[in-house]
């Protein structure tokens, strides 16, 4: 595909006025319009279109529980807490920026100084009933500790099942297996996205 059609933004010679005729007022003109509409057999065009789609059988349904659409890395689902690759320790340094920036005030954290005189998170909760999944907490985090995961199947008996710090934290065995999914960064595109993008509207 060449770039010329995108660079040429001058559409003045492509716009045209649609020829809309006045509504007929005379009975004879009305009768002629009725005849024209009746015998233009547009109804059968509609019938043919749906029949063609039925014969072509190009079904676009995703039968959801069995197959799932790939989800973009930018998707903002329930939060995850990441660990350091080197030491398997928690990345969170307890700076409290996420708590400050949270516009729905749903993050609460308590910190203390541990025996190594490092700051340590003692309590960390996210009230998912209030969270609007704006992504500010993940954006502001200086350590890439809190990120959004891709888990959107959140059915549970209680909301509290998702706000537990231990539940958000990458499990140790997953960490040992080196399977922690790193956040690809803001602006990351969905895999194979360029295959599904056809044409920008500018070229129409």
């Amino acid at each position, binding site marked *: 595909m060449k770039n010329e059609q995108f660079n040429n933004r001058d559409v003045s010679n492509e716009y045209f006025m649609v020829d809309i005729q006045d509504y007929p007022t005379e009975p004879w003109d009305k009768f002629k319009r009725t005849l024209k509409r009746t015998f233009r057999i547009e109804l059968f065009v509609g*019938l043919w279109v*749906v029949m063609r*789609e039925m014969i072509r059988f190009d079904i676009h349904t995703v039968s959801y529980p069995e197959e799932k659409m790939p989800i973009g890395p930018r998707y903002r689902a329930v939060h995850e807490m990441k660990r350091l690759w080197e030491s398997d320790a928690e990345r969170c340094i307890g700076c409290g920026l996420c708590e400050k920036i949270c516009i729905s005030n749903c993050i609460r954290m308590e910190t203390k100084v541990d025996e190594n005189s490092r700051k340590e998170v003692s309590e960390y909760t996210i009230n998912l009933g209030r969270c609007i999944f704006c992504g500010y907490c993940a954006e502001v985090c200086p350590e890439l500790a809190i990120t959004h995961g891709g888990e959107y199947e959140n059915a549970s008996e209680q909301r509290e099942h998702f706000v537990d710090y231990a539940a958000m934290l990458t499990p140790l065995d997953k960490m040992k297996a080196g399977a922690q999914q790193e956040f690809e960064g803001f602006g990351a595109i969905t895999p194979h996205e360029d295959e599904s993008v056809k044409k920008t509207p500018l070229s129409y």
Partner: protein
Amino acid sequence: MEVAYLIETVIKIVVVLLVFSMLAGIGTYFERKILAFMQRRLGPMNVGPYGLLQFGADAIKLFTKEDIIPSNVVAPIFKIAPVITAATAFLAAAAIPFLPSFTIFGYEVHPIIADINIGILYILGMMGVGLYGPLLGGMASANKFALLSAARGAAVFISYEVVTGLSILAPIMMVGSLSLIDFNEYQSGGFTDWIVWSQPVAFILFWIAAFAETGRTPFHLIANDHEIVDGFGTEYSGMRWGLFFIGEYANMFFISFVIPLLFLGGYGDGSFLGALGLLGKMAFFFFFFLWTRAAWPDVRPDQLMWLCWKVLMPIAVLNILITAIVLM
């Protein structure tokens, strides 16, 4: 002989009732599947293989749902209205020959419950009475959408019933009988004997009126979902609503039998092939009901009345006049 006739009739009634109640259920499955395919969807897939048992699940749901009678409705009328729709739909089936007569265990069976001499008049009358279901149900519902639907039903009914009656008059004049058996015998000579060749206008008119009669999509304005919720069915729940549904689908099947019997040769000479032909034609007309639902928009009530009174009725009257002159 008298006892045998009685037993035969009772058996036929039970068979027709069971088969068409069942078909009405399966009809909903076909409708959902075909609409889905035409809109590039899959339709019901999860209950049974390819969703085949979906209508069973629907039936269980309808039967076990609570039957709610709202507090402001006229309860006796509200309760009886769905029964009218379903009962008249099945009553109309009494004069329809579903298959040619066949011999079983040396006993000749006529697959028509009563070959009365006013056949088609009786069928149209019964289907006309079926309108009392939506009308009474809508007026008794104490719901403005239901009331609107009842008013529309009455207005539309007068319009299309005129077209139905007048369009069918010309073929009746040719055949000289109202019985569907006589219609069939008139056309039993084969493909070229079909009434549709001599009465194409009446065929088209009757087909259009059949859409209004069954309330299918181009004229689906009695229960037009996007305008008046579910119309007369708004306040109904459970099996009472299900009876409306069964009545509507049974009506679709019966009218799909009547159109080929009247115009397209019916079951022909009565052979096995002819019987298959009738079922095939019925299937096509039923399919066409679903096909139009996927393709065509709905018309407004005033457009339907305009169409019936100002276009179809004059054409029907002209058709009768020309037929009469030719027959003379």
